[in-house]
């Protein structure tokens, strides 16, 4: 299965736009190379003369999203080889740009690059793709790979100053945590203009080069949360299957279903219901959701015919302790997927709730072990 998907992916990738490399003339390349060698002052550039020119060729791309792109997006959303959904860093020509055309910076993650180019349909532009190691703009900015040094390096190594006349580059607003515009101006004489949060606002933005307050604010809509759920679930699919299989044999199908339900509620239901679950902390939200999910299982265990009362009560207690603990932990982990949790707040959450979750899980596991041993010994 892995091999089949890999082969399909490879064959589709070979058809991706942006692969038609237009090599610059040797004269131009040499000129840029000499200039770059003399002016590079960043910390990420090699001294090797050949490599300093590896990205001076301009590639072409289009604003059209084809089936291969959509398939790649699907795999990225499923978490398939997370860091391999990349486009080659460097300068891209979109449409028929000239020296006056706008320049947009992007990450070399296919979802970021494709969102940008598809939003620029009918617009002639240059796209400067930074090497963010296949990570999206927002995460790469937080990590620093979508940052000042890389932007300066790409501006210089592509010879952008010799291609355009206006020395202005439009950077996505969510790249700002990694980019210092005063430093970029100082090092390259390029002006950084922060575009809107969402690429699809760019056509409207370009009319005045002014973003409305609406364009400047990040949203986390139902759709935004929905597309994150597959990769969230895929992170935990193997341990979930393993635990469910063990529970099936030790405690029956209801217990196995409870394990799957706990993970599904933390990775799928929680993101979808995020705004409507009470409280602000993710851990308590997860705990509330977990309790709601565990109640039907607790009821089924208590009312199971033929099961001694103590065993039914212990099973119900295990469900009421384990499911909320798992859901709350998964909910806490979802903080990294959002754009509104601060480092200080998350740290406070961790110190407030992790011990509670661990305690609940430990007591729940002990209850489960007692039940499992009792079943094996024929007591229940």
């Amino acid at each position: 299965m892995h091999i089949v998907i890999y082969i399909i992916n490879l064959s589709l990738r070979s058809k991706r736009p942006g692969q038609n490399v237009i090599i610059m003339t040797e004269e131009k390349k040499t000129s840029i190379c000499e200039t770059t060698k003399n002016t590079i002052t960043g910390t990420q550039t090699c001294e090797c003369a050949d490599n300093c020119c590896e990205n001076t060729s301009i590639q072409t791309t289009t604003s059209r999203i084809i089936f291969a792109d959509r398939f790649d997006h699907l795999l990225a959303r499923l978490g398939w080889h997370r860091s391999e959904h990349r486009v080659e860093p460097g300068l891209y020509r979109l449409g028929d740009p000239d020296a006056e055309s706008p320049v947009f910076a992007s990450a070399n993650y296919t979802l970021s690059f494709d969102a940008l180019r598809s939003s620029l349909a009918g617009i002639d532009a240059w796209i400067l793709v930074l090497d963010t190691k296949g990570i999206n703009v927002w995460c790469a900015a937080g990590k620093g790979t979508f940052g000042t040094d890389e932007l300066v390096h790409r501006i210089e190594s592509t010879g952008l100053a010799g291609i355009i006349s206006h020395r202005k580059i439009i950077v996505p607003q969510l790249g700002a945590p990694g980019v210092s515009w005063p430093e970029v101006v100082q090092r390259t004489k390029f002006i950084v203009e922060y575009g809107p949060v969402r690429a699809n606002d760019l056509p409207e933005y370009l009319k005045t080069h002014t973003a409305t307050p609406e364009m400047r604010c990040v949203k986390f809509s139902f759709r935004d949360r929905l597309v994150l759920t597959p990769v969230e679930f895929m992170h935990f699919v193997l341990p979930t299957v393993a635990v469910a299989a063990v529970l099936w044999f030790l405690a029956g199908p209801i217990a196995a279903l409870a394990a799957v339900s706990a993970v599904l509620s933390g990775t799928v239901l929680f993101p979808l219901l995020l705004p409507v679950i009470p409280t602000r902390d993710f851990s308590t939200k997860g705990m509330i959701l977990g309790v709601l999910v565990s109640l039907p299982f607790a009821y089924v265990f208590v009312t199971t015919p033929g099961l001694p009362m103590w065993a039914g009560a212990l099973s119900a207690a295990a469900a009421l302790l384990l499911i909320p603990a798992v859901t709350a932990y998964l909910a806490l982990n979802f903080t990294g997927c959002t754009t509104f949790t601060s480092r200080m707040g998350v740290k406070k959450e961790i110190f407030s709730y992790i011990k509670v979750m661990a305690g609940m899980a430990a007591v729940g596991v002990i209850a489960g072990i007692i039940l499992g041993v009792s079943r094996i010994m024929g007591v229940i």
Partner: protein
Amino acid sequence: MFNSYTETSLSFDPALCINCKRCTQVCPHAVFTAGPTCVTLDRPSACMECGACALNCPVQAIAVQSGVGCAWGMINAALRGKDMDTESCCGDDGSCCGSSAPKQKAAVCDCGKKER
């Protein structure tokens, strides 16, 4: 109650502000509001400490202990005995932002020379 996000490390010195409004352009939560002579810090509790405002303030009127609010990354850092405050979330395979392993490779150029 049940709100860990009431405090922020964000601080702003209006006396230093030159009203360039860059902070209002980079903040995704409208924490700063444009004013006639300088911006105002109107919604500090909405700050997620991404650091964009401080990094783009040309006169250092804004300070914030920036970092990534990712429990996955912080818990993993703590489990590995590393600093929760400085480790970013995009570190391991399977983390929310994918792997950064290729970065290690990129530290050395194809020609064998180390990056400057």
